[in-house]
Structure formats: structure tokens, C-alpha cells
């Protein structure tokens, strides 16, 4: 099993770098994962990550993009509630990139 080192602790991740146990996640891990992708997380990135965490804690599933955009629009305004905005923040796609930073498991199927 591959692992990820952070602040002296070792975390198990899957072959694509998704955290194996979502409950071990902390904000530092997200920042570290982003850093490895040469990305510094802005407030806008954090808004998405925090929403994904809350949703996953409630439902144990990653939200569909429809729900993600709707909720972001409700919370932070219409200009943040659309697909284009999300792909500008996370060019590899919110499903893959943002979910990974948020400690969620890899989405399944053709993604």
C-alpha cells in the first residue's frame, strides 16, 4: 500500500494518492497534496474542499456536480455556482482533484 508522509506521520493512500481512511484527514494534508501538485490553496479552493467534507460526513458519498454547484451558489453567490468556475479552480476536474484534497475516496467508473 503506498503511503504519504505528513508532519512525521504516515498515511495510507491508494495508488492514485487518495487517502484510504477519510476520517484521518486534516487541513494540512489537503495543503500538502496541493503543494505536491504545485498549487497553493486559496480561500476559493477551501470553500469547495470544506463543502465536500461536510457532504461526505453526512452522506458517505461524494456529491454530484449539480449539488456541488447549487450549494456553492447558495452559500457564496451565483458566480461561484457553475461548472466553469469549478474547472478554473480545479483544472483536473472537481471530482478527481478536489475530492482527493478533501480526503474522499476515488470516484468509480469512467472517470
Amino acid at each position, binding site marked *: 500500500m503506498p503511503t504519504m508522509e505528513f508532519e512525521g506521520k504516515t498515511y495510507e493512500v491508494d495508488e492514485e494518492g487518495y487517502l484510504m481512511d477519510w476520517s484521518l484527514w486534516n487541513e494540512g494534508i489537503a495543503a500538502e497534496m496541493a503543494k505536491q501538485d504545485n498549487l497553493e490553496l486559496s480561500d476559493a479552493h477551501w470553500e469547495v474542499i470544506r463543502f465536500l467534507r461536510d457532504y461526505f460526513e453526512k452522506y458517505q458519498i461524494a456529491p454530484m456536480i449539480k449539488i456541488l454547484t447549487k450549494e456553492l451558489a447558495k452559500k457564496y453567490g451565483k458566480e461561484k455556482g457553475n461548472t466553469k468556475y469549478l*474547472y478554473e479552480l480545479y483544472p483536473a*476536474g472537481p471530482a478527481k482533484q478536489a475530492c482527493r484534497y478533501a480526503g474522499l475516496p476515488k470516484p468509480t467508473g*469512467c472517470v
Partner: protein
Amino acid sequence: MSSERSHKAEKVIERMGKKLTRQIVGSLAACVHCGMCTDSCHYVLANPDDPTYAPAYKADRIRKLFKSHYDWTGKVFPWWVGAKSVYTDKDLEELKDTVFGKCTNCRRCSINCPMGVDLATFNRMARGLLVHVGIMPEGIAHVAKEQWEIGNQMGILREDYLETIEWQEEELQEEMNDPAAKIPVDRMDANIVYTINPREVKHDPRSILDAAKIFYAAGEDWTMPGEGWDMTNFALFNGDDDLGGAVANRIYDKIEELRGKRLVISECGHGYRSTRCEGPNWGKRDINDFEIESSVITMLRYIKEGKIKVDKSKNPGIYTFHDSCNNARSCGMTEEPRELLSLVVKDFREMYPNRAENYCCTGGGGAMSMPEYRERRLKSGKIKADQLNATGANIVVTSCHNCVDGLADLIGHYKLGMKVTQLVNLVANALVLDRKSIGGGNGKKPAEANPALSGIITP
């Protein structure tokens, strides 16, 4: 010996007898071990010192079993023809590692075999035998289960699907500045029934919006089906013909219920092959009442018939095209995507080798759902990465969702700095929306299109 065999091994052998078709037996019997297949496989090219990746070697893992139980040569002189059975669950696990983890069923070896051995076809059969006894990668099991139980490979509920379409309809109305613009669902007698890959609903609906823009601009009488809308079919990957028939029939039943004239499949290689080429066989069904075509052909027809107008200059950049194995090698769709691409971009550069000889994106055969083999997959992608790099292009276009992800992964891993997109995104972006040319338009000027490419993925 049979008393020493595990229950699962017993079942695998028994089922093999039921799955042997003339095509498969021909392929199992015909190999002369000439080695022509060796250099055709991307796994071999990336692992020249490992003979276990050679297509003939992989084929022999399955051939041994066939010789041992179903071929007279193996009964008369087993030592000579290499007949060897499976006995334990560990043997089956080893077989799993070969048939799921060392081959993407891309069929490049098949078309380069002078004897016509179609390894991918019986590799798929072998996967099906293992799936039948519950031996398969977890990701494959999960997706197949969703397709069996919920009706689509991502477990999307009907209301979520419908709401997503509604949402895209609102976006369409806004972008087209036309409150009458629609994405119809379950409209009867439509000219086109448009089916998609569930990832378009769950993760990236930009391609639904782009397709809707094109249908809108063409004034097409189209609809999306309320059910049977998932044109992907994991049976192509897991070898379960029963699943294949169930999924394909769901789509065909719906088209017939709606009395649709043409079933159009969005850009997805395995979906196109499954729904158009394999589905009627799996579903034991004749398709007489409607035609089936790829959206690539639909879009090309619109431009040729003057139904939509496009402006190449809206798509700046240097483009290359990656042929999906299922579209090009297995279904012969090689020229239409190139013709279409040349109509919507100025700078298109061919990748070599191409068309039916193109190398796999490395994500084929369900490989993107098997993270346990990721390291092998990325290593085998060296040949594809070199191919991409040599084009000098900065954007690679492909008509397959799986290839989009496979390529994006390689581009990231090999640091190629390229982007990936699909034809639907390029056509939608190049649209010239002239009110006179839009069927049912209200004469208002549409809102300016976003200059940034819409469906692009940056690894």
C-alpha cells in the same frame, strides 16, 4: 485430479465449455507462436525484458485451459501442446492478474496477427469466467453492480439525472439568450434520441450543454431518454454477457418505446462499440426500427448539410487526434473524426501510428477502474507519451471518455504539458450562431460564447 480442484476452479472450467464460440475456438487453436504480436503490444514495448506481457504468452494462460479440457490434442498429448488446468483459487488469482492486469483488450495484437487470433475476445471471455465465480478487481465489481442494480454505471438516481438536465437546459437558455431553448426528455417520435455516459451527469455536464447547443443550432428534433440513457456497458470489460444484454436492451427498449428514429451515442469508445456493435448480440435482438450512430457522425453531417456553421478561428492551438481502440480498431470509425476535426480547428497534426494501428491510451478495458494496476499502466504508457510528444501539439482530441482520463493521467505522469478535449466541445465552441440559421429561433442575438474552451481537462 478433479477431486483436488477448488469449487471455483471447477466452475470456471465448466463455464468455459458454455462460452466457447467458433471465433474463440478458432483463435485458441490457430496460434503458431510466431511472435508477430509481441511488438504490437504497448505493455511489451514498455517492458521489453518481461515475457509475461507478450500477447502470445498471455493467450497461452487461457489456451492451456482450453487444451486441457476442450481440445482433443490436449487429451492425446498434453505435454506437447502445453495443456494445463487450474486447480486452486490461487491459480485463478494468477489468471486474474493476467487477464485484468496485463491487457487492456485494445486488440492491437489481433489486427497484427497473421493467423487472425483475436486475443482480446477470449481474454474478455476469461474475465467473464472469473467474474462468474466472483474473482475480479473491486472497481470492476462495483461499477458492474451499479449498472445491474441502479441502471447506470455511477448509480445516479432518476431524479438527479432529470434535475441535471434541467440545470443544463437553464444554462442553454441563458447562453443562447432564448427562453424557448430546450433539452427535451422523453419526447415521442423524435428524430434523434441522445444517450450519454453517466460521468457527463455526475462529474462534468459541460459536454451535455455543448451537445445541446449543437442540436439547438441545427434546429434538430431531438430528445434525451428518461431511462435507458446510459450507453456505456461494463460487460465489455467484465465479460458478463448477461449484463451486456440487460444494459443494451434497456436502451433499445426505450428507443422503441419513444419511437425514436435514430439512437445517437455521445463520444465514448466502449459505449459506441457496446451499444452499436456488440449489444444486439448480447441482447439477442434484431435492430430494425432505428439507426445507431456516433455523435461524431451526426455533427459532421450537420456541417456538411449546412445545418450548423462553424468558425475554425475560435479554436486556437495545435491539435492532434487520438483514436480510441473501440472506435477505430473495433468499429472502423477512423475518417469521420478527422474530417470533423479539420473543419473546426486550423492546425491539426496527425499522430503516428494512427487509425487502426494507434496505441492504446492505457485506460482501455476498464483499466481506469482498476487502481491496483496503476503503476503498470503508467509504465506501459511510455509509448503513448512518446507518440503524443512527437506530434508537437498542445491539445489532444479524442472521441472517448475513457481515453480522456487515460491520456490525462499519462500527460500528468510524463509531464507533457498537453490538454485533452473532445470533438463535441470543439464543435460547440466553433459554432457561429446566426439567428437565421437556427431552427425555431426567436431572432435575438445569443450571448457571446466563452472564449475559453469549454470541455478542456488540464491534467
